[in-house]
């Protein structure tokens, strides 16, 4: 399954080449042109000569992760986060370090040795380290360089009938959906951007939109599902198994109303469930894309995902299939790219 390959690939922000290569292999024969821009965004166009207006689909390839920032004399590695990570989720997690994929585990003081004040607080970054089994700085340096990226070593696996666990669903899900959408024909030029460096500040996609100048953009994302015990129901941002989530507003964007209404119409006509994302937190590449040049009407549709930005998250495969189907039908409803 392609989503499994994408989820298990390493692609911490600015180090997206492994993901980019997988995507390239899978779309090369389905598009007219394919190129990587200066930032590292992978861009492709299908139906370039069609008459209609340019439509842009975008998903980001990068994931949150860690970076090696020091090597201790005993061979343990210091690190810092790349993107937003809850450090409480890190202790004892298996990781892979660098492009040679060295196995490691995130370590900290064992519970027997912790003072009570330490037990009550999250362990600070400076007291967390990665252990790759080396016992001296010299030995560690054979495998590791400062600046090496670290990603979680989490296997993709189906859980139950409809759910799956894995890492980096944010936003390999979006990448996987776009790859699937390129199988079909549309009556307008379809541009797709697999962007870089979203997790460190929406840096890649805006540059790509600047070059492409589409007439509209739809960003396919993964958003936080918060249908879990610690939240009141009015605080749920989105819920699993209730269909793709549409963003009306977040910190970076107010979605274009016509696009949102168009997607809702398509979902109603085809009996595909959807939900409106309830929180207005977070931001996506759409924020940058929508403010490019003279402005680009943009909207976001997401797959709800529990435990997002942690070493392992959980999605509904039913929602995932609905997401693919809904966008495909919406794009087929768009006449010559007029929305």
């Amino acid at each position, binding site marked *: 399954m392609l989503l499994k390959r994408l989820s298990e690939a390493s692609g911490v922000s600015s180090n997206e080449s492994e993901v980019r290569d997988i995507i390239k292999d899978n779309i090369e024969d389905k598009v007219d042109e394919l190129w990587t821009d200066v930032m590292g965004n992978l861009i492709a166009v299908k139906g370039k000569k069609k008459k209609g207006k340019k439509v842009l689909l975008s998903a980001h390839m990068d994931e949150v992760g860690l970076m090696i920032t020091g090597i201790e004399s005993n061979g343990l590695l210091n690190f810092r986060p790349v993107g937003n990570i809850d450090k409480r989720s890190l202790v004892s997690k298996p990781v892979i370090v660098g492009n040679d994929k060295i196995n490691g585990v995130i370590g900290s003081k064992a519970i027997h040795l912790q003072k009570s004040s330490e037990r009550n607080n999250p362990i600070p970054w400076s007291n967390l380290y990665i252990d790759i089994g080396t016992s001296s700085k010299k030995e560690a340096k054979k495998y590791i360089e400062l600046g090496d990226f670290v990603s979680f070593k989490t296997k993709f696996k189906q859980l139950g009938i409809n759910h799956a666990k894995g890492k980096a669903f944010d936003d390999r899900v979006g990448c996987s959906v776009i790859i699937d959408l390129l199988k079909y024909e549309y009556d307008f030029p379809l541009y797709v951007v697999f962007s870089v460096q979203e997790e460190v500040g929406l840096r890649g996609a805006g540059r790509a939109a600047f070059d492409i100048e589409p007439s509209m953009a739809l960003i396919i994302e993964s958003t936080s599902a918060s249908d879990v015990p610690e939240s009141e129901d009015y605080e749920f941002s989105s819920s699993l198994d209730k269909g793709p989530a549409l963003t009306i507003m977040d910190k970076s964007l107010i979605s274009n109303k016509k696009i949102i209404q168009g997607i809702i119409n398509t979902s109603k006509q085809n009996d595909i469930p959807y939900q*409106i994302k309830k929180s207005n937190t977070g931001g996506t590449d759409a924020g940058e894309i*929508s403010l490019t040049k003279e*402005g680009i009407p943009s909207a976001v549709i997401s797959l709800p995902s529990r435990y997002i930005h942690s070493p392992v998250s959980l999605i509904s495969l039913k929602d995932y299939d609905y997401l693919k189907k809904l966008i495909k039908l919406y794009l087929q409803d768009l006449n010559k790219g007029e929305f």
Partner: protein
Amino acid sequence: MKKLIKEITSVFGPSGDEEKIRKYIKKQINNYVDNVYEDNLGNLIAVKKGKSNGKKIMFAAHMDQIALMITHIDEDGFLRFTNVGGVGHNFLPGTPIVFADGTIGTIGVEKLENINDLEMSKLYIDIGANNQQEAEKIVGIGDTAIYAPNFSENNNRVISNYHDDRIGCVVLIEAIKNIQDNNNELYFVFSTQEEVGLRGAKTAAYQIEPDIGIAVDVTATGDTPESHIMDVSLGEGAAIKIKDNSTITHPLVKDLLIKECKNNSINYQFEVLEFGGTDAGAIHLTKGGIPSGTISIPTRYVHTPTEMVDLSDVKASIELVTALSKSIF
């Protein structure tokens, strides 16, 4: 002008949902401009052509409003909400609100042990629905509501729910009606999504590429009891902004505004705002940079449901915009 203020502050137009206010403003100015159009982000842009020796000036007043957005409808038909733009939750309990279709509501608050526990998540909107089903027939998640219209006046002092920035729109509309024989080419932008991050003005400026940019917006004052110290007062004239968090007014623009005030005997005061920003912040960083500044209308109680301005300041601002239409620089 009072009629215009009363009408325009009652028209619905939260950030990202500016269709109704765009239509309203277009109707007001259609007969007085050479061209009027809507751009990709919904900005309404009106053009008055100039003469061959003129420069290109972009004026921007935002037509969007801060608002509340529904996030959840509970079993009993009460609505939970979040803010669109800078809404202060401490002003909300008991505030009447209205939705796009005219549905009204009021804001209630959960029982609090301590008034300091007041936060947005303890508040809810009551539209009088008996249960979830009944409420869902009227409103949906993602719908927005604004403070209900409440225009009122005492002589020269006018209160309304949304002087920010409909009073700036009034300044531009009245100036558009006044201006004749302008030698500068004038772009009047009624911008969108200012309250959520100066978004509309950014893309409008990219497309227009003006020689200078002037935002027309409200500013806070320091003339109320125990207020933040700030040398801006109601009734002392149009405020020429020196700085806020989004811009330091370009010297060329600052000097031009002072010159026009002096030459035309327009009352003015200087404004240093230690927080906030205006569309000028987005305009001045466009492309290779655009010298920009802001004409501010002093306003008490900005971002509360009852904002107050002095009409003499509004008139001074209109005169200043009008003077700039012929300004040589």
